[in-house]
């Protein structure tokens, strides 16, 4: 969304960046098999514009092997959070790139296996020795073969590269390596075209393998990793209706005349909605913020034959004549998410400006007047990326639907205790396992409100804890009559000695907070401690800007303050809320 995307803009901006006190810090390393001038500058600027203070390390040209294998290298000293290894086909194949068909067919497999193993070994060494994530670019499938139109055989030039890529994807991306990720370079090539991204003049002059004009666009592709690792990825899309989800104004044009469906303008909105629905199905929350008569607009959503998004796709609907900023704040409050995790789509430039001015945390998309551009604008956004889609992500929109129904029941029943009884809440307590570890890590990274210590753990750390003798890592799955909430709480206990356990982490997703699940979790810890002969459970409350809701939790459950710790004597018990059924699964 920059006005000027020339590389010179980024090179110059990069010189003006000064670290901010409160910015999120990220250490990024670049390793490459070609010249990558301009990459780190562009990334630092893009990070800066998104509230991230990025410090970079760029390894010398073609030194990636040594940097990863030699434990005294600059890369080890730099201690990156994320490392990009940018490989290219010319480099990997060397002279074979030109003379692939001079190699006997029988030898080609061996060459490909060797090349694949070289990359694989680098990844494995990296995985063992670094805490950093590693993103490796897959190899570009050559767009030219001396065989011309007869190209295509097994272990032909294109097939050979395809096989290396396929193996790498399979080993790391598919098999859920928590640290190694393969970026699909051919997606970048396909999007912009090889004749654009590769410039022979620049290549012969300076070994530049991604042309200068396209460096900012390539770096933008990598930003998806950066946003999610820095925790600035977006969770929720808030949408206007008139001229955003359909063409025209419902209040003026009426149900039969809005543009949605079988005409050029209408098709663009249908396509845009289909893109939104696909994001919704994988965990992005949708909400509506529209100035309209509620009845007019909701009728379209419920009944229009070409409407793709229906009421159940929206976790929160604000169709009224209230101020759009007030509506956004209410949506954030009702969904219990930060304004900084919201993206706002509205066709009206005045609304765009107003929200930008009033709520700078919200990402406001500069939607152009031409609706045919909407789908592409959305598909080019990197702000929704996550390293791995968890089961909770794919279920999220159902969960929010359940949440809406819970709210309705709560309002209907009136009495909160009676409401809780009617909810039929079931809590399943489980030891961390390979299925739940990614989600547990995600919870520690994302939970801000009901979080006693706000310690952030990557997947491999949670994994280490769960196999340690000295730690207990458990999680809770919560279910009620409106559906499965999935894994929504977790605790990590450090077994200090034979008398004492320490609560390292204790958190509960804000969706579930206040229904007694937190008491059940603490009750589990106390019971477990008792049966292990532990006398004291100690916990800390580490205050942050957001965890006030958890502030009085220890005190409420009978912990006593001793210096900075809250201490529970296991001669006492924690009362289990009666409306919850507990299922143990150890």
């Amino acid at each position, binding site marked *: 969304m920059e006005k000027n995307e020339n590389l010179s803009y980024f090179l*110059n901006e990069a*010189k003006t960046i000064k670290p901010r006190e409160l910015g999120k810090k990220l250490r990024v390393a670049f390793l490459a098999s070609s010249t990558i001038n301009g990459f780190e500058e562009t990334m630092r600027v893009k990070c800066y514009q998104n509230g991230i203070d990025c410090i970079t390390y760029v390894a010398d040209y073609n030194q990636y092997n040594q940097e990863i294998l030699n434990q005294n290298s600059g890369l080890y000293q730099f201690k990156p959070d994320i490392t990009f290894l940018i490989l290219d086909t010319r480099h990997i194949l060397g002279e074979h790139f030109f003379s692939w068909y001079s190699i006997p067919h029988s030898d080609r497999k061996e060459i490909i296996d060797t090349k694949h193993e070289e990359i694989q070994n680098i990844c494995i060494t990296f995985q063992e020795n670094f805490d950093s994530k590693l993103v490796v670019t897959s190899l570009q499938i050559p767009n030219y073969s001396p065989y011309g139109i007869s190209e295509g055989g097994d272990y032909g030039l294109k097939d050979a590269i395809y096989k290396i890529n396929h193996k790498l994807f399979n080993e790391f991306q598919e098999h859920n390596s928590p640290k190694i990720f393969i970026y699909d370079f051919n997606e970048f090539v396909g999007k912009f075209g090889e004749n654009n991204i590769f410039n022979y*003049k*620049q290549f012969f002059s300076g070994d*530049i393998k991604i042309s200068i*004009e396209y460096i900012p666009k390539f770096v933008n592709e990598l930003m998806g990793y950066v946003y999610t690792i820095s925790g600035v990825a977006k969770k929720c899309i808030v949408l206007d209706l008139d001229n955003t989800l359909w063409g025209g104004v419902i209040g003026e044009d009426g149900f039969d005349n809005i543009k949605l469906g079988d005409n050029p303008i209408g098709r663009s909105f249908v396509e845009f909605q289909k893109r939104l629905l696909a994001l919704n199905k994988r965990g992005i929350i949708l909400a509506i913020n529209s100035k309209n008569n509620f009845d007019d607009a909701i009728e379209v959503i419920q009944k229009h034959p070409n409407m793709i998004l229906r009421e159940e796709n929206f976790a929160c609907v604000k169709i009224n004549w209230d101020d759009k900023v007030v509506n956004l704040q209410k949506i954030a409050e009702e969904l219990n998410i930060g304004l900084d995790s919201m993206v706002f789509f509205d066709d009206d430039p005045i609304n765009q400006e107003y929200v930008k001015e009033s709520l700078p945390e919200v990402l406001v998309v500069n939607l152009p007047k031409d609706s045919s551009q909407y789908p592409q604008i959305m598909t080019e956004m990197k702000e929704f990326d996550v390293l791995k889609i968890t089961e909770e992500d794919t279920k999220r929109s159902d969960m929010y639907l359940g949440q809406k129904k819970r709210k309705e029941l709560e309002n209907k029943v009136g009495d909160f205790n009676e409401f809780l009884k009617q909810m039929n809440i079931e809590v399943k307590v489980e030891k961390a396992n390979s299925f739940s570890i990614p989600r547990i890590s995600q919870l520690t990274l994302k939970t801000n409100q009901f979080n006693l210590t706000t310690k952030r753990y990557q997947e491999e750390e949670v994994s280490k804890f769960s196999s340690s003798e000295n730690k207990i890592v458990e999680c809770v799955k919560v279910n009620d009559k409106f559906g499965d909430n999935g894994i929504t709480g977790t605790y990590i206990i450090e077994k200090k000695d034979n008398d004492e356990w320490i609560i390292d982490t204790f958190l509960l997703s804000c969706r579930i907070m206040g229904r007694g699940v937190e008491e059940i979790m603490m009750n589990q810890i106390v019971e477990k401690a008792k049966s292990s002969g532990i006398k004291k459970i100690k916990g800390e409350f580490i205050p942050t800007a957001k965890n006030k809701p958890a502030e009085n939790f220890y005190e409420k459950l009978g912990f006593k303050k001793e210096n900075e710790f809250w201490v529970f004597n296991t001669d006492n018990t924690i009362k289990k809320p009666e409306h919850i059924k507990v299922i143990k699964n150890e």
Partner: protein
Amino acid sequence: MSEKLYQIISKVFNVDNSKIDDETSPENLEEWDSFNFYVLLDEIENEFNIKFDLDETLEIKKVGDFKKIFQKHGVDK
């Protein structure tokens, strides 16, 4: 033409317009390094909608040399 050329050079090298004249070269402008020069070539090509030949780019030793190439390419706006 000169003015537009100087503007682009001043923007890419991030130096004041007044520092640029036909004699400006890597010898007297520290910001003119080899990579910045490629960036400059790219942006001049885009702005003037021309393509330099590789050998032409190798002959550019100072700002004035761009003008000679422009003449060859018929750029005179």
